[in-house]
């Protein structure tokens, strides 16, 4: 419970810092809004096949990523995550996300890094909690990545599902499709005492 409280404090503190994140080009989805064919109507481009060289390259180094092209998912909303691409590699940097993982698809080259530093005993963060996912986007391949978020119910926090990235590049198609979907944001009801 102590750990939970400190994590909650962290989230609260970082939430304020998240306003510094670059503005997303699409608005949050609403219950009645018709889904758009592409949410990337704003400033950031989507990943096109023409930008992705054929063949297989190694994952970019940490020094390469700062020069990567910012992109936006083909469909859906990336929320606070920032996406960028180098060659056939895509990186997602997601603040406030405590965990992510590959649900399905070839794990080769896929990496997940959770980082952040606490600055004091009261949980005040020195560096914000960030999860970084790097994965290849190649022709004829598909992957699904899930994200967690921190939910709060009855003043107790828990780690709950926080969204899904689907990457599909079907054989013969010119472009890959990156779909990001936000999972429900209502009350979380998991585990004993959580109800149905």
């Amino acid at each position, binding site marked *: 419970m102590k750990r939970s409280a400190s994590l909650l404090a962290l989230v609260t503190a970082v939430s304020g810092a998240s306003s510094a994140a670059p503005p997303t080009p699409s608005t949050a989805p609403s219950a009645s809004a018709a889904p758009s064919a592409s949410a990337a109507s704003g400033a950031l481009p989507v990943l096109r096949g023409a930008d992705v060289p054929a063949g297989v390259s190694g994952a970019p180094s940490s020094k390469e990523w700062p020069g990567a092209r910012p992109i936006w998912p083909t469909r859906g909303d990336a929320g606070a995550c920032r996406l960028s691409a180098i060659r056939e590699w895509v990186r997602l940097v997601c603040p406030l996300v405590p965990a992510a993982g590959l649900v399905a698809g070839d794990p080769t080259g896929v990496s997940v*890094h959770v980082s952040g530093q606490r600055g004091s005993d009261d949980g005040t963060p020195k560096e914000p909690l960030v999860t970084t996912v790097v994965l290849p986007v190649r022709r004829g391949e598909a992957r699904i990545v899930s994200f967690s978020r921190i939910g709060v119910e009855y003043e107790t926090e828990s780690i709950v599902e926080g969204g899904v990235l689907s990457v599909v590049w079907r054989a013969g198609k010119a472009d890959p499709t990156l779909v990001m979907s936000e999972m429900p944001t209502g009350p979380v009801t998991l585990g004993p005492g959580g109800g149905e």
Partner: protein
Amino acid sequence: MGAIIRASALFLAGCLVLGGCRRADRADPARERPPASAAASAPPAPSRRDEPPLSRHGEAIALSPDEKTMFVADEEHEALFLVPTAATEPSAVRVVRLPGPPAEVVALPTRVLVTIRSLPTAAARTARDAIRGPVPEASKVAFLPVEQQPPPGDRSAETTKRAELVKRARTRPRNTRPNVFDPSVVRQSEGGLLLVLAADAAAGLVEVARVALPPDAWGLAVTPDEKRALVTSAWSATVSAVDIERARLIASVTTPREPRGVVIAPDGVHAYVSHLVGSGLTELVLGPDTLTAREVPLPAARARAVPGVELAASLGYDLVLSPDAESIYVPRHALGADGIGAWWGAPTVDVLDRASEEPVAPLHRAPVAARVDASYVRASEAWEALPGEAPSPRLDLVQPRAVVYRRATDTLLVASEGDDALTELDALAADPAMAERRSFALGVDYDPFGDFPEHGGGPAGLALSRDEATAFVYCRTTFDVAAVDLRTGDKRYVHLADDGLPADAAYGRRLFASARAPALSGGLGCAACHPEGRDDGFVWSEGDLSQGRPELHFVGSRKNAKMRMNDKDGTPPLALFPRQTPMLAGRMRANGPYGWHGESVDLPARILVGTELHRAPWQPSGADRAAGEDAAKLDYLADYLRSGLLPPPTVAHAPTSVEQRGKAIFESDAARCSRCHVPASEFTDRTALPLPALAERRGFDTEPNPAFKTPSLWFVAGTAPYFHDGSQATLEDLVRTNRDRMGNTSQLSADERAALVAYLRTL
């Protein structure tokens, strides 16, 4: 349609201003009397020939090519409703009596095609008329405004209503003898039909041709040239090709169990069929005078499977092609699928790439280990989201019944029978069920006692307007059509008819379909595993997954039991036993006992046990409630099982010599089949006998109690696989390998075994 929505919105605004609205009183004919307007009373006009149909794919609801009329196939009332889409009064509605229960309808420019599941014999007709209730009347069709729901958090009215309903349920005189039918009579059929109907000024539609088909004609699709149709016959496990112009059967082919939805590719040659049981599709090739079939594997929810395990599927009622015809989408249940909080599996939409015949979804593989440089981030507990775990099953996709493709947005609209929802998914995602865009709640005015809606219950059919701005949803348990404005979310309802069953059984019908009644299950309706009272062909896992007192639960797979609450050091390993879903329809006449070991004294007692079995161990118990104030629900369900859940149709015929020989063997003192499978009592003695144990099946544990109640053999031909563990795929296998385990069949010759199987197929 826009006018309807605007009118609805105006009405709604008026309600808000005036402080409340009452639904139109359907019992007051004066309120429903149509205005004496020629326009309002005109029957639906035939479409112009140059207007293409909105869809050549059958659904329980279809729009005319000019979108002025919706055709609704109402199976329970054995009627086709013709409802003008712009109508607000019942005067222009027509109700066309049909010769049997319809399933799907396609509206072509000059013809309307309807599948008829069964043309009952005279005896069956009499029995069915008694079950079905009064013939629906057009004048009683009600056009309803959307009612305002109570503000969130204000449950005072709900609590009061619930208390009233509980009191009424306790004091209501019970149906001492519900309208229990004789399965051997009500099932009698002269076969299925494809009806060809044409516009008629007086009647709305009149029959111009009919084509005899194998019984249980269900799914329907028409070729692009509109000259031929394909019809699935579910119980008969066949698909038939029909020449529409000549009204003749071209050919029929056999398929795996329960073929349902059918779509035809733009080439008019290739077609695909989904199945209620099993994960594969059937591909059809339609020649000038031929029809061939082959199975196409489509593993369910690959992204949710344990590595190396192929998941089973059920509830493939419908499927749809992408506009470019490169992909096939099949909403259904993936049984045993993994996911956060998944106990039975998960609803899925599986996508098949036609060119490669491979699923689009990637395989679930070994998890990727994360590097964590954040000491204060703790690891997830077992009940929380684990990194890389598939998302939780979506309740608003449970029991999918119908799907359409919305090409303007590359999304899918899926009707969920269990959750009374219409849900929009991203069709371009690897697994669309993990990429939900939004969901429309169709149910309104929920009964606080029964947890089902007064309107919008059990969505089962979909039609999309040409501009893709309005979805028309047939809601089968409440007999409504919901018109959903996909731009605004506004919904408007047309109530076609009241349930013809006695009140208790009608109540049971809604409970049976709904996944929203927490007293009965954990987010899964009875109809999920017993679709139409039949079975899903799946072998479930039963075990004690509880904390504290022994408590049995079902899970879809061992993986789904990962959240077992008492899984601590020193706890015995989890033991799971196989339980193949039994068929219910037509097998529920006996007082009892029920249960695998005959442990439930009567049917309500067994349903009570089921309320515990069919939920996750971490979900609140339902039995305590169901045994208390909600006990009436058990009776409602029992009434529906006995008087509303019709058995599959079967063509009655004089027994062949082989079948007669098989009957003699079955009843002989040598074989002794009929000693336990007593013909006079549904072919069972309802006694649990300790037979020699079957070989332990992989993935299951040794059964401590080998005494299983003799199962009924009614309809046994269509309920494969067999035995409680599903270890025998066919009746032939069962009889061949039985030897003397049940009765004495080791002495039978191959011909005698074949005769015995032939007889069993007649039951």
